[in-house]
């Protein structure tokens, strides 16, 4: 009996590993394929090979050195928007979350409901109006215009997330500080912010990555290639003549995906704990 259970368990474990193996292949294959495509010579997809006879880095070189390539400009643009977006959203959402977590004020409850509701409405729903608005204030085809939309659009989701996290920080801490004579901002600065670092890191990370990944908003807001962000620029590589530029796209895409994936994997622990504690306690 004991023997039988042991063999059964072993077979089970074997099946589990086989399943993982299948998953690994399914996950890895497309990524591996893209990497291999990026080192295929030429741009004709019909003659590409999974294992090219003469692998080459010509596409990577092209991105950085060819005078026709705007790749570095796009990288710079994306970094610009990403950094400001990360910093700005942490500031804005932590202020809002602090007010919602620690103070009673008129409109608090409806404000929370509003956040919950609004985070389900994608920016696309109001796109026409956003475009006209940006036009009236002269911020179309501008990275600042893009940034403003990102900053405003992230508020509902992140404010809710950070507020949920703030709620888990014991109130006794700030009450004790209040007795010691600390003001509102001092409590915020010396108690709440340091303790909320994990969730603030999550917010910063999400908003840092968003401009690298989003392609829709830039497509609507930005029109001239020197203002493109990476996602938009890369999309245009393959948008016009799909089959002819995919190898180049693959090279450019890998250079974005790699740093983002690395940062992501390093920070995943924070990410998950922040998400679960923030969102489920909201």
């Amino acid at each position, binding site marked *: 009996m004991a023997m039988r259970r042991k063999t059964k368990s072993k077979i089970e474990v074997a099946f*589990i590993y086989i399943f993982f193996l299948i998953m690994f292949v399914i996950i890895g294959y497309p990524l591996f394929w893209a990497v291999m495509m990026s080192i295929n010579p030429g741009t004709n997809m019909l003659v590409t090979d999974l294992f090219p006879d003469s692998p080459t880095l010509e596409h990577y070189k092209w991105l950085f050195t060819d005078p026709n390539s705007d790749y570095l400009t796009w990288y710079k643009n994306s970094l610009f928007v990403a950094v400001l977006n990360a910093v700005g959203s942490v500031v804005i959402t932590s202020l809002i979350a602090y*007010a919602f977590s620690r103070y009673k*004020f008129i409109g608090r409850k409806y404000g929370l409901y509003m956040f919950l509701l609004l985070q389900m409405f994608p920016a696309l729903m109001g796109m026409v*109006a956003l475009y006209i608005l940006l036009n009236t204030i002269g911020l179309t085809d501008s990275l600042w215009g893009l940034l403003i939309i990102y900053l405003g659009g992230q508020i509902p989701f992140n404010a809710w997330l950070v507020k949920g996290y703030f709620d888990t920080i014991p109130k006794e801490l700030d009450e004790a500080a209040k007795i010691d004579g600390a003001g509102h901002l001092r409590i915020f600065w010396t108690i709440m912010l340091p303790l909320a670092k994990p969730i603030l890191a999550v917010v910063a990370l999400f908003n840092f990555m968003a401009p690298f990944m989003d392609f829709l908003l830039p497509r609507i807001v930005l029109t001239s290639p020197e203002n493109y962000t990476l996602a938009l620029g890369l999309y245009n590589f393959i948008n016009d003549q799909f089959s002819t530029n995919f190898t180049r796209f693959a090279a450019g*895409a890998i250079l974005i995906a790699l740093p983002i994936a690395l940062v992501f*994997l390093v920070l995943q622990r924070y990410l998950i704990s922040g998400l679960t504690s923030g969102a489920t306690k909201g």
Partner: protein
Amino acid sequence: MAQKQEKRKTGLSQPRNIATLLSVIVPGLGQLYNRRILKGLIFLIVTISFLVATWDYLDIGIWGLFTLGTIPREHHSIQLLLQGLISLIVLFFGIIIYIYNIRDARKDAIAREEGRKKPSLLKGMLDFYDGGFPYFMIIPGLIMLVFIVVLPLLFMLALAFTDYNQYNAPPRNLLSWVGFDNFVDLVNIGVWKDTFFSVFTWTIVWTVVATTLQIVLGFFLAMLVNDKRVKFKRTIRTVLILPWAVPAFVSILIFSALFNPTFGAINRDILSQFEIMIPWLSDPFWAKVALIMIQTWLGFPFVFALFTGVLQSVPADMYEAADVDGGSRWQKLRHITLPHVLYATAPLLIMQYAGNFNNFNIIYLFNEGNPAVRGQNAGGTDILISWVYKLTFETNNYNMAAAITIIMGLLVMGFAFFQFRKTAAFKEEGRY
């Protein structure tokens, strides 16, 4: 002091009512009556500057909102509509300040009646800072939220009731309010009706199937990795999370190339071994299958990560108790793990459904909603949001796009309703 109390008057001559009335007539006057000079002056100045600065704007805005302009080419209906909506918002904030002013005057007057001492200037300012602090914290975000999220949604809401389309567009033409005509057209006119119902059905199928698959797969994998007998947990987790770490637009475009019937590896390298060629991009059915598979690939790691976190928080003694009672593995799963995990993650799972409902990126990047379908003005894989995008930016059917957006909004409210209920449940429970 005592005498003053006795002589307390009622009705209009009572100071609190006088102060209230004065503030109703002219903001700040009540405060001046209360001898709160500085505060009164501030209210007065704010009121005057508010009126001076916004009067013309509001006047035109409100007029424009009702008429949408009267002279073609001179009045731009869309700008008037936008100005009208902004006017409404500004007016709303103005009224809030106005009401605050009245309440403030009344409060101070009551304090004076009761003989409480007028606070010193410093104390007054400190009180103002204390009471107003949460508002100061939310105002920058609130203003952004109102103009970047709420205003555009209101604008779309308004557009749905106008006749703004390619053929009737400002500045050449004036727009007018048409009531529910657009919605009626949507379910009555042949091509709109057919398109709407087929896109709508596919959107629902897409949302339910793709999201459920990614949740089931994520859950299953989380259970497996959580198994005590499995080793190398960290490595396995890292690999399983990889699809989440790679930017989605990159993966989608890679898949789009992989599924390409001429050069894509799926047909060329894999299926050709079995002598099968599947028209992934040109046949609506297969394109949909491909989309659902890709979304499962993209979406399961998030759920997996989430469940992994929650599974570790299930109290071990519950399983031990179940073991003692001779519970089977299935029973443990059904009665301990599932309730626990679903309860803790329900809001995020609902968000997953809402997210896929609005998942424009995958539909558009994979195949731009194509292939085209006969007798329809949307592609075979278009979901509502990508259809709206096409109607807006490709065929300029703004009014119909807006009407569909409203229908989407109503559906999204359905998700939100569940969300609220779940969140309310958490508050009562207070356990997680």
